[in-house]
């Protein structure tokens, strides 16, 4: 295989693996802030044990997220040196800002969050939890801004030619608030809230099925459900906004997502289907002219199709973009249905009555994860052949000195180490969940007031 293919596989593999963890950190971070906030407000012991329990889960997720994240930061330079020279002025700035504003905040306060329970007061601890959440959310801002700039470049100009061409910032804030940035940040945040809340739903459902830690699990389930319900519904709007931006600024990507070839016709909206690139036909269930209506509120407005782009400027994996995008949308719809069904059951006071509901809630943890992954696949394969949209091709972005053997070597190493890492992660997660919250721990010191509150409730 060529250096390009290997480097793309390596980048895709390392970033996909990495992206299991940060959304969980952000989502779980939000839920921990709510739990600890509830504890501060009500002083109920159940909220304290929730906060402590999920902090342990968070530590595990965060640790692997950091370890795999540092790889990403250096991979631009190792495998994509030409790209790095081209975008350093812009992309590097966003990355440096991420390090100093977000990552430092997150990692600094993480120490207090994990180990500071007995060293700082509850309010300072809560403050630290909030800072860790903010840090992880800021992190997402800068990374998504950097990625969005590649999708919809703005606030820059190109200096030099050929090998020496590079983008330079002309207006920092225009660069930061490039056309797709805000909508994509929100889209990513909400995706993260879904990942975190469905993890808590899953763990709680498992306890309820096993009839362990029932009170703890019911309280956690409800907190996570509120987050999940709000997030899933908001994602409908955030996702739609993102799609509109794609339609406006990356029409070739949108055409691939929807399997739309004909340039002059109004476009259909497929609920599902299969794209044949050769015959340019999509077989599946469609809403005639639905895409035109969704984008322009008019069933006759034509949508630019793939055929209006030169062959070399189109994404090559049309069916892949189509399938990943549709899978994301389908999962998104299901998550709305599921979380609002749970809300309905809660309202009917039947939330914890049905075994199948708990069973499905337990397994649903994989859905937001899959949606987050395939959503990025669609976004990143859909913008090919460009790495910086309309400016730099992925095939031109490589390191000139790195050989295929070197990349193969590192790819094999990453595969082995990440496989080990994943096995350990699942093993540890499982162990922590089975261990459950610490119900009684003589080492934990409580203030006299908390102590009496606790005994009153028991």
């Amino acid at each position, binding site marked *: 295989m060529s250096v390009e293919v290997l480097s793309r596989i390596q980048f895709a593999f390392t970033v996909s693996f990495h992206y299991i963890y940060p959304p969980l950190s952000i989502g779980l971070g939000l839920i921990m802030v709510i739990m600890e906030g509830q504890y501060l407000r009500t002083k109920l012991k159940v909220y304290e044990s929730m906060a402590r329990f999920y902090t342990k889960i968070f530590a595990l997720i965060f640790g692997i997220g950091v370890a795999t994240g*540092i790889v990403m930061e250096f991979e631009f330079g190792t495998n994509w040196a030409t790209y790095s020279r081209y975008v350093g002025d812009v992309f590097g700035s966003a990355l440096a800002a991420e390090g100093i504003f977000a990552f430092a905040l997150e990692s600094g*306060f993480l120490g207090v969050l994990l*180990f500071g329970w007995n060293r700082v007061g509850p309010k300072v601890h809560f403050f630290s939890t909030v800072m860790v959440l903010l840090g992880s959310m800021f992190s997402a801002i800068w990374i998504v801004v950097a990625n969005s700039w590649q999708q919809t470049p703005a606030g820059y100009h190109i200096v030099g030619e050929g090998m020496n061409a590079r983008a330079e910032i002309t207006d920092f804030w225009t660069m930061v608030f490039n056309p797709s940035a805000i909508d994509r940040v929100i889209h990513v945040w909400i995706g993260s809230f879904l990942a975190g809340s469905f993890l808590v739903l899953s763990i709680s459902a498992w306890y309820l099925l096993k009839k362990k830690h029932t009170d703890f699990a019911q309280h956690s389930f409800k907190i996570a459900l509120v987050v999940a319900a709000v997030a899933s519904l908001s994602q409908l709007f955030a996702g739609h906004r993102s799609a509109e931006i794609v339609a406006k600024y990356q029409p070739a990507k949108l055409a691939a997502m929807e399997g739309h070839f004909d340039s002059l016709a109004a476009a259909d909206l497929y609920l599902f289907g299969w794209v044949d690139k050769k015959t340019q036909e999509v077989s599946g269930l469609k809403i005639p002219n639905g895409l035109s209506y969704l984008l322009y509120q008019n069933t006759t407005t034509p949508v630019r199709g793939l055929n209006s782009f030169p062959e070399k400027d189109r994404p090559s994996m049309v069916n892949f973009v189509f399938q990943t995008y549709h899978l994301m949308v389908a999962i998104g719809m299901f998550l709305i249905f599921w979380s609002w069904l749970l809300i309905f059951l809660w309202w009917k006071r039947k939330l914890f009555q049905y075994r199948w509901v708990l069973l499905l809630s337990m397994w649903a943890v994989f859905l937001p994860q899959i949606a987050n992954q395939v959503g990025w696949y669609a976004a990143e394969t859909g913008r090919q052949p460009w790495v910086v949209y309309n400016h730099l091709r992925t095939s031109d972005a490589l390191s000139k*000195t790195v050989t295929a053997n070197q990349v193969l070597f590192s790819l094999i190493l990453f595969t082995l180490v990440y496989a080990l890492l994943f096995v350990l992660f699942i093993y*540890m997660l499982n162990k922590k969940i089975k261990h459950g919250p610490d119900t009684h721990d003589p*080492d934990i010191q409580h203030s006299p007031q908390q102590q009496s509150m606790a005994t009153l409730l028991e």
Partner: protein
Amino acid sequence: METFLGIDYPTWWFLVLGAVFTGYAILDGFDLGAGALHLFFKQEKSRRIALNAIGPVWDGNEVWLVIGGGALFAGFPKVYASLLSALYVPIMLFLLMLIFRAISIEFRSKEPMAWWRKTWDISYSISSTLLALMLGLVVGNVLLGIPLDENGNYIGDWLDLLNPYALMVGLTTFALFMMHGAIYLVMKTEDKLYAKLTKLVQRTTIFFVICIILLSFYTLLYVPHLTESIKSDPWLFPVPVLMILSIANITRQITKKNYLWAFLSSSVTMSMLLIIVFLELYPTILLSTVDPAYSLTVYNASSSIKTLKIMLMVAAIGVPLVAAYTSFVFWTFKGKVKLDEMSY
């Protein structure tokens, strides 16, 4: 060229980079050093205390590497691209060692089995050792220069990176981190472990002194281009003098058992060493051994002046914030290590 306080912007960013990497060396230096020493502690409780001494802070320390990487990417993208692609194999191994180290710390105490803990102890110690050596190896190669063509692409073999000078810098870095880590640990421990560490502090200090003397001779005798800046400007002579005095002060404070002062002195030693590195490099960052004209300097490799100005603003806002909460975290966990239910 536009200046600020008499210094042009690429040079300012070079200074920022110097400050960030110095911060990184001082902070991550002690936890990498503590890791390298880990297998010297034989008892289970000693190992746990040593691990928890760095527990709440190692992650924050590593952030300085992330900031440094970002700062290099943003300010000198050509250096970032050339250096990382040239050092492809060592960088990949470095990243994998970072992963191993992180998971060793994370997973070690999660299972009670002796084999489990022993495996992670070894993995933790070896990865810490290799990381220290590899950091030195990178610095050594940057000091010596690497074969770059006119486009900044590396044209050597990666095995050339394992040259004697770079290995000597690697060994010295390793020795320096071990000493720094031992001094840090001795401040955080009590009783028998403390007694053991007081001996380790002495031995690692002797080891470092031997390494630094050898490295100094090596540089002075065989790598003349690394002595030119200080040679040509006597006003810079106090820097190496201060380095020697701070090393002398480490031994003095150790004898007096003033370990906080010893730690500060060893931090000063690190700063002086890195100041010498940055002084001797400037204005070159990455020297091409093929043709000096192909070298990447602060002027031909930097981002636009506008971007550097923006990044200086970012640094001016960000660095004090980072310093503030880093201090807060260190203050929160000051004093001797006590194990509790959340410990590693």
